[in-house]
């Protein structure tokens, strides 16, 4: 179970061609702090991939490299068969539009109301939508995260859990085919965490999305993950289904499931 070759294939209903594939990804900060030391990873069509690992192990860095918020030092990342690392600006933006990114701290636009937060990306990328279409889309997306009453609030008036869900609605409104979730349930109570985890599964089913979910929340991992990977020392240390990893003989892997 220690390396990539030995993981078992998960039977999936849809086809299993990779939508993201990462080969030999390296990233260091400064001369001494090498965070990623050769990550190999694929995300298959329609799959929810959960990424585990200790705090500071470089999980956020990996998904930021996928959308090229951070330039990698070495390695190849392909998304929808396009090479992200060498893409020019317009190609990069075209690919980014097909991906959604949920930030660890939601990253809502402070100066805009919830409505404007959702309208902002939508208006810019769909020039021929009428005001009515936009309003309908906003209401529909807010309903799907269960927060339609917050439409006129400012981000500063929302709780952490509400911000997470608004952030998710803002991501979903562009109908992404891939969603990258950075700790969607961290800092939330058990009930809200469960609601968000269920929402993630519902989105996968309904929109046929493929996702990478970074989490420390094992309940969320169990519920949402078709496949799990664990990052340690800059590489993928273990890979498998929840049950496989839970019953792993490796003590370190096991400690995640305690």
């Amino acid at each position, binding site marked *: 179970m220690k390396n990539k070759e030995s993981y078992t294939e998960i039977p999936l209903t849809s086809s299993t061609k990779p939508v993201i594939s990462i080969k030999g990804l390296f990233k260091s900060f400064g001369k001494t702090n090498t965070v990623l030391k050769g990550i190999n990873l694929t995300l298959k069509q329609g799959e929810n991939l959960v990424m585990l690992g200790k705090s500071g192990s470089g999980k956020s860095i990996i998904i930021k490299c996928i*959308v090229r918020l951070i330039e990698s030092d070495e390695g190849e990342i392909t998304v929808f068969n396009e090479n992200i690392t060498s893409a020019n600006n317009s190609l990069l933006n*075209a690919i*980014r539009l097909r991906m959604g990114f949920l930030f660890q701290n939601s990253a809502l636009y402070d100066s805009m109301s919830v409505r404007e937060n959702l309208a902002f990306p939508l208006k810019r990328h769909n020039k021929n939508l009428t005001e009515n279409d936009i309003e309908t889309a906003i209401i529909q997306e807010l309903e799907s995260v269960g927060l339609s009453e917050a439409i006129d609030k400012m981000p500063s008036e929302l709780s952490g859990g509400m911000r997470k869900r608004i952030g998710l609605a803002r991501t979903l409104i562009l109908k992404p085919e891939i969603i990258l979730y950075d700790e969607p349930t961290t800092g939330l109570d058990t009930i809200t965490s469960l609601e968000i985890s269920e929402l993630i599964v519902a989105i996968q089913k309904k929109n046929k999305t493929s996702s990478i979910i970074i989490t420390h929340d094992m309940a969320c991992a169990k519920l949402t993950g078709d496949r799990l990977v664990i990052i340690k020392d800059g590489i993928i240390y273990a890979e498998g289904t929840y049950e496989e990893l839970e019953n792993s003989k490796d003590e370190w892997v096991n400690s995640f499931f305690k």
Partner: protein
Amino acid sequence: MILKNNIDSLSVTLKTIFNDTGNATLFMGRFFKEIFMPPFEIKEFKRQCFLIGYKSLPLVAITGFIMGLVLTLQTRPTLAGFGAESRLPGMVALSLIREIAPVITALICAGKIASGIGAELGSMKVTEQIDAMEVSAINPYKYLVVTRILATTLMVPLLVVFADTIGILGGYVGINIHSDVTLFRYFSQVLESLDFIDIIPPAIKTFFFGFFIGAIGSYKGYTAANGTESVGKAANTAVVAASLSIFIIDMIAVQLTDLFF
């Protein structure tokens, strides 16, 4: 040994200054490239004009009035000594328009606007709002930076004209403390003493003041490091650098005016 250490630390400091100046220049260069490429963020530009221009009016009005008043009261005895008291309105208007109103207004804007932009963009950077725009394929430089630089470039000159006017009115109040001049007579004296070359060069330099206030505030905010303390640092260094740039521009402007007018 001590000398060597000093030279080392000096060279490090110089390196940072040159690096920072170089990066800031590239950052500003991007403005001229992106300003001509659609989409144009008209709505955000208008909002920034309102926030930067309209919201600064009270502050600029108060300081403008006091500048005119104080200048009049302090110049009066000197002119009276030469028996040239009738020259007072012209003197005050000239000093205000040529030097005092542009520089003081620009410094106030550096304190209010550059620090505001630095803190706002800095906190957007730190809370990943700028990254969020980037990943949703929106150009954050165009939306946040181009609109702000354009707004300060256009609003600071208008604020200076406003400060000129209020300052001259303050001068009128100052004159009437000691003597009795009608508003009409005062203004005709002011206008008599003003020439084309008193107005145009200072007007041109205010556009540069505005540009650098917006550009430096944006640069410091946009390039803020991670962590909340860097937001304070961005606001702080924005004020210092913008104020410094105002004096440097002023110095260059005086030399050029001397040469050409």
